[in-house]
């Protein structure tokens, strides 16, 4: 029983850290940018913070701060160059960014431990993960109701219309990219604290695929979708692994197919709920409603 509990907690921990990374990717999608750069931000945050934990004896909270700052700065710099790229070109460029990050990590041995990797001296506990994810969710929920939230949705759905409404499209995307960088950096530090050992492979393409799966299959039109997606695609595999070992990949694949076919908007899909709600509601009688406008021709 004790072992079951340990496994459950471990699964929950990875789900929570995964959720922070998923929220980082959600931030960019919110403003209409398909970006895999979360993995690069996470790598920068993780290696930067781990180096300072090892050399300067940083604790977890200052390490999270440093990681978030590192991710944010990298996002600001790369964002300036990348955001102007349209659609799939941006996605490709961010994949390239992940490759470049890996090369840098391998070759900056003094700072990152190179291909040997580095031991992470500070452990992350469940309650700390809950606190960090809670704060992240609170910020996103607030943002969703703010002027920025409106601007981001308009930018995602139709940048041309957004511009004619006075929304500074590029600036909205840049802000989203930087927030994504901060969340990515923080998520990277959390991930490092769970893994307790990081090397260049800890933050590579496979993580990018997992994170984007969490966001898109969890539901890309509400921040909560990313959290649910992370539970299903990072937490569940950790727990299920004990029963079926490698067979877990089959479950993942089946889940992917089921969601893509029957829930194309993801697990959390506000648009689908709204459509269902509108479908149940009787349509207002149009004749009555139009009366004043249709008096004569």
């Amino acid at each position, binding site marked *: 029983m004790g072992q079951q509990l340990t496994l459950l907690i471990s699964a929950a921990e990875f789900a929570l850290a995964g959720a922070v990374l998923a929220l980082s990717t959600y931030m960019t999608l919110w403003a209409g940018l398909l970006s895999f750069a979360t993995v690069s931000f996470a790598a920068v945050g993780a290696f930067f913070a781990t180096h300072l934990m090892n050399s300067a004896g940083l604790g977890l909270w200052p390490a999270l701060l440093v990681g978030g700052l590192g991710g944010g700065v990298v996002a600001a710099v790369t964002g300036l160059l990348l955001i102007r790229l349209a659609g799939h070109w941006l996605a490709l460029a961010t994949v390239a960014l992940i490759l470049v990050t890996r090369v840098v990590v391998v070759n900056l041995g003094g700072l990152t431990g190179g291909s040997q990797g580095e031991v992470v001296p500070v452990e992350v506990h469940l309650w700390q993960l809950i606190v960090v994810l809670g704060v992240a969710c609170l*910020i996103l929920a*607030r*943002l969703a*109701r*703010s*002027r*920025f*939230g*409106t*601007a981001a*949705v*308009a930018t995602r*759905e*139709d940048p*041309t*219309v957004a*511009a*004619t*409404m*006075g*929304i*500074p*499209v590029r600036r909205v995307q840049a802000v989203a990219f930087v927030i994504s960088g901060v969340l990515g950096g923080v998520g990277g530090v959390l991930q490092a604290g769970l893994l307790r050992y990081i090397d260049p492979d800890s933050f590579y393409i496979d993580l990018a695929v997992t994170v984007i799966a969490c966001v898109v299959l969890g539901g890309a*039109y509400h921040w909560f979708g990313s959290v649910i997606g992370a539970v299903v695609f990072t937490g569940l595999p950790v727990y299920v692994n004990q029963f079926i070992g490698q067979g877990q990949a089959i479950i993942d694949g089946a889940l992917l197919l089921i969601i893509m076919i029957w829930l194309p908007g993801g697990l959390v899909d*506000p*648009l689908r709920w*709204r*459509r269902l709600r*509108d479908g149940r*509601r009787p*349509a*207002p009688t*149009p004749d009555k*409603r*139009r009366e*004043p*406008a*249709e*008096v*004569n*021709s």
Partner: protein
Amino acid sequence: MSGTEALAVDGLAKRFGGLSVLRSVSLTVPRDTVFGIAGPNGAGKTTLLNIISGLLPADGGSIRLYGDACHHLPAQALARLGVSRTFQNIRLLRGLTVVEQVLAGTYRRRRVGGLRGSAGTPRARAELRDLREQALETLESVGLRDAADRLAETLSYGDQRRLEIARALVSRPRLLLLDEPTAGMNAADWTGIGELVTGLRESGTTIVVVEHNMRLIQAICDRVAVLASGEVIACDEPGVCLRRPEVRKAYFGK
């Protein structure tokens, strides 16, 4: 002259590759009027509107908005100067309800932004309540208040056009550009739009409307410019303009 004109376009030119879409287009829109732009398909009407609203850069010529040169400004800057528009193919934002669409149009009037706005302060909440009320009033004026909480995509075609106009109106534009607001509508619907537009002029909005429907143009426009092959071939009161032989030739081929 700049005291009475809302919009002055002078010598505007636009080429797409080897194709000259606009050749030296000049026109003046007086304040508080409804100004029509007519012309056969491919005359350059929508291109002209896209340049005026900042979505396309012009290759030559100048535009003045209430006396200020503005042809170098992007769409978002022009929106802040009070230019608002609708689109020929209705462009609503997917997934939003009717009132949310209109609320999105209030963006440039929201003052509490950044961290204060996202912190949910009483001021931010009060502002949002206030703007929502204004959005509902705007919906009332286009006859859509009862549909406020429905998904915009469930509205009929004519109502979606009205909604797009409401979204443009809620920003309280000084210059409203309507791109074929009655395209694909039946007679009952377009007369409704006509009444809406004349009502707006009474309330002090200058309106430029691109339109094919000559009966509507005669009913609502104070002046109309007829474009053909990228040039203004006539600009006058609608009744006078549409009787001109060159206009009849452009439209009917004789």
